[in-house]
């Protein structure tokens, strides 16, 4: 269990340092089951921080989201460190960002938050309904206890956990400077049963499934923007010269967009599940990513975001790589 007092204390210390620019964590949301990513710049703000089962967001996304303003002539750029609180899954994003040289290891301070799983807002909404007041959630054994509009409600942990948490293999951060709580036991395992199940469909059935899903897409690019690995200055998807994908929203362009997104995350996706969570039209985006994750593992014995020293999957090769379909 994470003691928020300790978490805040550690954050306060870090924020008080002269060489730290900002700290990214979580804070209470304004309504319902929401929490909000918190970007703090001053030690006095540390008390805003929380960590509870609402803290689903991946703070590592916000390291690479930061846009740097032009530095006025004669001034030095702000090269102070960024501190970030990460759950186990979030830490894989930090690892992969390091592999991809998004920043250097000494450019970040990582405060690790061992995590026992977060609540899927959609599942909670289905179980308990909505409210305009912030909901408090605590984990108690195999239950989650909610305080909704002053009323205490309970729900089974197994039914409320986010999907990514059900199969979580990395509840403890893989990279950190300091842990804010004791490590927790691993409970999850991932056999990719969902991928196997999906693959039972024939190609036309799969296409039909995705056609329906992609037809919903409004191309808001929230799935791309929230992804901690997607931080190209100019994304091929929105590039004008050349125009790989057209901005028009129709099922062909939307499908192309989603294939492009999934392709670019092949061997890079760290399974934080944020893309699917943020989708306003409920496209099961991780179904694509998980297929790639499984195949990358099976074909190349590769898992992104677990080893800072690893070579990027598609920038290396093994002369013995599989090639069974190659003529």
């Amino acid at each position, binding site marked *: 269990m994470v003691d928020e007092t300790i978490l805040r204390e550690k954050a306060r210390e870090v924020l008080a340092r002269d060489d730290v620019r900002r700290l990214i964590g979580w804070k209470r949301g304004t309504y319902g089951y929401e929490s909000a990513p918190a970007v703090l710049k001053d030690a006095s703000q540390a008390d805003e921080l929380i960590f509870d089962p609402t803290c689903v967001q991946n703070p590592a996304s916000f390291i690479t989201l930061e846009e740097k303003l032009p530095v006025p002539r004669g001034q030095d750029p702000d090269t102070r460190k960024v501190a970030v609180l990460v759950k186990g899954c979030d830490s894989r994003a930090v690892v992969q960002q390091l592999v991809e040289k998004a920043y250097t290891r000494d450019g970040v301070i990582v405060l690790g938050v061992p995590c026992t799983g977060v609540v899927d807002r959609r599942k909670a909404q289905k179980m308990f309904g909505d409210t305009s007041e912030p909901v408090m959630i605590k984990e108690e054994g195999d239950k989650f206890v909610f305080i909704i509009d002053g009323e205490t409600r309970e729900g089974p942990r197994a039914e409320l956990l986010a999907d990514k948490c059900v199969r979580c293999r990395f509840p403890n951060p893989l990279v950190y400077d300091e842990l804010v709580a004791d490590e927790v036991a691993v409970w999850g395992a991932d056999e990719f049963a969902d991928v196997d199940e999906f693959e039972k469909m024939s190609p036309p059935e799969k296409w039909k499934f995705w056609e329906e899903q992609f037809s919903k897409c409004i191309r808001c690019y929230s799935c791309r923007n929230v992804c901690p690995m997607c931080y*190209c200055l100019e994304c091929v998807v929105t590039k004008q010269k050349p125009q790989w994908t057209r901005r028009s929203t129709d099922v062909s362009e939307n499908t192309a967009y989603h294939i492009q997104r999934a392709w670019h995350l092949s061997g890079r996706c760290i399974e934080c599940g944020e893309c699917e969570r943020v989708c306003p039209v409920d496209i099961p985006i991780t179904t694509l990513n998980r297929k790639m994750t499984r195949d990358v593992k099976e074909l190349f014995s590769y898992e992104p975001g677990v080893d800072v020293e690893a070579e990027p999957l598609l920038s290396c090769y093994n002369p013995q790589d599989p090639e069974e379909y190659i003529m």
Partner: protein
Amino acid sequence: MSSRRPKIGVYVCHCGINIGSVVDVPAVVEYASSLPGVAIAREYTYMCSDPGQNLVKEDIKTSGLNRVIVASCSPRMHEPTFRKTLKEAGLNPYFLEMANIREQCSWVHEDHAEATEKAKKLVEAAVAKALVLEALEEKEVDVIPSCLVIGAGIAGIQAALDIADAGFKVYVVEKTPSVGGHMSQLDKTFPTLDCSACILTPKMVDVANHPNIELMTYSQVEAVEGYVGNFKATIRKKARYVDVSKCTGCGVCAENCRLAGRIPSEFDENIGMRSAIYLPFPQAVPAKYTIDPERCLQLSKGKCGKEGPACAEACTAGAVNFEQEDELVDIECGTIIVATGYDVFDAARKPEYAWSDYANVITGLEFERLVSASGPTGGKPLLGRDKKGEGGYLPQKVAFIHCVGSRDKSVGNEYCSRVCCMYLAKQAHLIRDKLPEADITVYYMDVRAFGKGFEEFYDRVRREGVRYVRGNPSEVFKKNADPEDHTLIVKVEDTLTAQALEAEHDMVVLGVGLEPRHDVREIIDLFKLSQSTDGFFMEAHPKLRPVDTASDGIFLAGCCQGPKDIPDTVAQAKGAASSALILIASGKVNVEAQVSFVTSSECRGCGFCVEVCPFGAIELVDENRMGNIVKVALVNEALCKGCGSCAAACLSGAIQPRSFKDEQILPQIAVLGVRT
């Protein structure tokens, strides 16, 4: 130029009837003229001819064309031709696009209508790409006026001498202790019967003494980097354990070696013996001794007799040095000639001929040593000598077998080795010469006597009483188990008389073929060469660029490119030398213009391209992005070969190979992707 509106000229070639007989050329021209940006569309019988090229030049000059499409043969054939045409007309050569309507259309499709439709599409795709072509700048780099020659057989020697004689520096690297290669092992050469050593030795000496040649024997190239005009090579000079500056080549060391006469001599094809400290052969160049570290007791066991190494003891010059270590030498050169030669086919891979089993079944190369005046038997074809090299008998019934390991799919060698027919004829002649009474039979599939004086020589040998039996022996075995009886049975069907024969012989010479060096892979990796199906190095073009490789500045000479006889080898070596000299003498060379470049404002500095680049041409450098310092990729254009692997690895498309940019390929896809 590039900022102007595209004004495209499309030229559709009939190629005589090669294209025109299948593709409706006028229809393609008409279609082309309807395409956007096309100002002129014409047809011509032979676009590559002078009048054809002049047509293009005229149009560029008079109509202000700024893009040219030639729909004809493969760009691999005539892209350089037409680039030159554009250049001569004052247009940037990279404004050329070719549509391959011959090799990939008229020659492969039977249906005229379909082929015509496809040709139209190919032209349309070329127009789509032409609209977005860019002018590229051909850059020049200085050429270091020197050449590195790998291998010092006759090919390497000749090439090195030619370049050195032209007044330029040559580094010759030879793996073995002496120059000379296979040619030095041969007795006489066909068809003129010149003594091989007599004609080779002077050249060997020249290569060692030439003021412009730095000879490194017993050395190997360890690493090569760089690009045409500017190669850097690291050469490992293996320790000889003999100080060459002190060694006088007197040979006392070898006489005193405890293993003297007990180690099979590679030069004598293991028929003769040598010491652990040795000179490969008497005329070896340099005449400096070398210690075989694997055989030398001192080096391999750490101890040589009770009194210590006898060779060191015997050497009055004090040249033996067991502490000597390998030495790494870095050199810079502008060009490289690969002349690594061949291996002879390993006769053990044809067990039916029992070469491994019987001492009187020998290979052609063993025969050379056996009949060489400087060989272990002093030129007498003695068989069955004892361990000390004493005794033995002279054969009476000699058989020669053609095509051992050549033209033989069962051993994976489909090709003809080109020299066996003639060397066997020569060897038959030598036997006739040495043993006038002997019965000589040659078993052949075909006799290929195609060279100058070959047929005449073959005819002469037959007239000398050598019997030619057309048949490919299926088996060679011993007549009986008696160790004193050397009779072998050659089982063969005479295909001219359809008679099954079991002929008796007491000596069988196998006409083993030529194969790529067993360690060819190392050379390939080192110099980025490619192989043809036969395993020999592939030339840039089988007809027109037979000494060039796909890597600029690296040339091939001799049998490493394919089996050939001595005159052909020498000719090719001279060709390679001439090619290298063109670069060296001009002092400048154009480097690849179609290289990658980075749009740094789109680069996120992840380094995927850096890791992918096989040539180490990309690095991450600091960039000041409006006051913020970021890492971005930067291409070293002299190292980049334009393969474009970086572009496929880049997520944002920030790095692109010129002429093959995403925005140049996507329009082609847009045209060709549409089903018609």
